[in-house]
C-alpha cells in the first residue's frame, strides 16, 4: 500500500501520525499505548498483526528520557507502522504496560529492553535479564553507564580490565 494512503487512514484515528522518509510513525502516551496497539491490530483496514521489533533509546537530559519504538507489520495489507512512546526519567525504573499478552513476539524483546535500559514492563510473564548474566549490575545501554572496560565478574571475583591492572 502507498505510505501516504496509510498515513491518511491512520490520521482519522491518530491525528498526530507522521509520515517521513516513506515511514509512518504514531506517537502515543504510555497510558494510551495498549489501546492504540489493539486498535492497530484489530481494525480491518489496518490489521497490524505482527510485532516485528521492539526497541528503545536513551536521551538523558530530555523531558522524556526513554523512547520505546514498536514496529508493527501487517501481513494482510503488507504495510508497516512505528509506534513511539516517551517515558520520563522519573520514576526510575520507568514503567510501561507489557504488550506480550497482545503480541507474543514481544516477550524476549521486552526482556532485552529491560536488560539493557532497565525499563520495567508491567504484566510481562517472566521479566528477567536475557543477554547479560544474572546478577549483573546496571543496564549497559543507558547513556549514563560508564564506557570502556568492565571487570571480569566470575564467582565473586573481580578482575579489572587490562589498562587498570597492576602487574
Amino acid at each position, binding site marked *: 500500500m502507498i505510505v501516504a494512503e496509510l498515513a491518511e487512514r491512520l490520521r482519522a484515528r491518530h491525528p498526530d501520525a507522521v509520515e517521513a522518509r516513506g515511514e509512518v510513525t504514531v506517537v502515543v502516551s504510555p497510558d494510551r499505548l495498549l489501546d492504540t496497539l489493539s486498535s492497530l491490530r484489530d481494525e480491518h483496514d489496518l490489521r497490524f498483526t505482527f510485532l516485528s521489533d521492539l526497541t528503545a533509546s536513551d536521551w538523558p537530559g530530555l523531558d522524556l528520557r526513554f523512547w520505546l519504538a514498536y514496529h508493527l507489520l501487517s501481513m494482510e495489507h503488507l504495510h508497516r507502522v512505528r509506534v513511539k512512546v516517551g517515558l520520563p526519567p522519573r520514576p526510575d525504573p520507568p514503567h510501561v504496560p507489557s504488550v506480550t499478552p497482545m503480541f507474543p513476539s514481544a516477550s524476549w524483546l521486552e526482556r532485552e529492553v529491560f536488560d539493557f535500559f532497565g525499563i520495567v514492563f508491567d504484566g510481562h510473564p517472566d521479566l528477567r535479564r536475557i543477554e*547479560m548474566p544474572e546478577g549483573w549490575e546496571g543496564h*549497559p545501554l543507558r547513556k549514563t553507564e560508564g*564506557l570502556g572496560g*568492565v571487570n*571480569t565478574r*566470575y*564467582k565473586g571475583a573481580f*578482575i579489572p580490565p587490562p589498562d587498570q591492572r597492576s602487574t
Partner: protein
Amino acid sequence: MPVQRISGAQLGQTEAELEDEAHRGILTTTLGKAVAWARKNSMWPATFGLACCAIEMMAAGAADYDLSRWGMEIFRASPRQADLMIVAGRVSQKMGPVLRTIFDQMPEPKWVISMGVCASTGGMFNNYGLIQGVDTIVPVDMYVPGCPPRPEMLMYGILRLHAKVQREARFK
C-alpha cells in the same frame, strides 16, 4: 635385556659406552621426556570456536593447512577427551562460567591457547559485553595475536606450545 643397556648417562656410562649403544640403535631418555614427546605429538583439541577466529581455526584444521601434520586434526566435542583448549574468539561475560566449566572438565594435563586479540585482552571490544582477557578465567599457555590470526600464526602458536610441553618434562 641386561639393565645397563637401557640405563641413561646418569648411571655413569662413559662417552664410549654411550656411543656403543647408539650404534646398537638404542636411544636413552627419561620417562618424563618420552611421555612429553607422546603428548605433544598427539594433542586433542576441544572445539571451542566462539567467533570469527574460529573460522581461521577451522581453516587450520582443514585440508589446506592440515593440522594433522602434528597429530591434532580431530577436534573433540567432549572436553573429557581433549587436552588442549583453543579459545578462538571473543568470550562474552555470559560465556565465562561456561568456558571455565569446560576447562574444569578436561582431564589433566591440559593446555590453553588464547587465539586472537579478543580472547587475549578483549581486543577492540572494550565494553560491557566481553571478558577483557580470557586469562582472567583460565590459565593461558600461549597467546596468538592477530584479528584474526592467520592459520600460520595459529600453527606457530601450536608449535611453540609443543616446544613448551616438551620443555616442561624437564621439571616433572
